């Protein structure tokens, strides 16, 4: 099942890369694509995902589509924030590593959360402890070093939506 999903995704990526628009379909390329996807998928399928049933929840895709603009907005804010700090003559930074707690459990959820945190204003994930749900985060302008308050500021805004996508 895991392998099947991975093979399907790989084949879609292959079609994106090689589809000849406006010309005749080249069957040679398509068939070699099928064989390559089956080969790669059967080797790496076991490492791919923990619970493949999540791929068939229709609501998850809706939440993911909702999540994208929300996340993109924070991404742009993060870039303006970095631009401000970098171009300011006094370099207004107050860096440090803080600890936050998250309720997410699944590996894919934690990965998505860590990546989102890295791309949003002033924060970068340094280390993850998946057993207890703790993340160590490098913050470019530390506002608080308390675990609860830092979690409130950094994690909560993504966690609620990511919970519905990945858990």
């Amino acid at each position, binding site marked *: 099942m895991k392998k099947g999903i991975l093979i399907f995704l790989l084949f879609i990526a292959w079609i994106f890369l090689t589809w000849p628009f406006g010309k005749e379909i080249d069957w040679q390329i398509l068939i070699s694509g099928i064989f390559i996807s089956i080969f790669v998928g059967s080797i790496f399928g076991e490492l791919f995902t923990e619970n493949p049933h999540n791929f068939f929840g229709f609501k998850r895709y809706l939440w993911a589509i909702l999540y994208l603009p929300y996340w993109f907005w924070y991404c742009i804010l*993060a870039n303006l924030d*970095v631009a401000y700090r*970098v171009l300011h003559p006094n370099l207004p930074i107050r860096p440090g590593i803080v600890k936050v707690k998250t309720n997410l459990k699944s590996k894919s959820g934690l990965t998505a959360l860590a*990546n989102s945190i890295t791309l949003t204003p002033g924060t970068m994930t340094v280390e993850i402890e998946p057993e207890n749900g703790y993340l160590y985060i490098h913050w*470019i302008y*530390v506002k608080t*070093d308390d675990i609860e308050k830092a979690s409130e500021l950094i994690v909560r805004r993504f966690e609620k939506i990511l919970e519905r996508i990945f858990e």
Partner: protein
Amino acid sequence: MRELISSISMVIGGLFNLFGCIGLVRLPDVYNRLQASTKCVTLGTCFILIGVIISGPISASLKSFLCIIFILITAPTSAHALSRASIKAGISLWEKSVVNKMEEEKK
């Protein structure tokens, strides 16, 4: 019109990349530098590829779309790997850093 929008998007992308590089030079230690470069270079490159999506032929657009997805997945992951490796290698934070929970917990 399409040309104009794609040019604007590419200029914005180039500007963000420039900010990332300035940050790479100006900020004091490994972790701050990683922050600036990861954020700005990821979004800057995405904007350049969005410009390609808008103006290019459809085969180029699909390929740039794939590139955006893979950049968004891999860039933060590699930044995480680099920062984790520097922590494990014992590279300390900038001397004016406020707090370091990882050091405190080790003691």
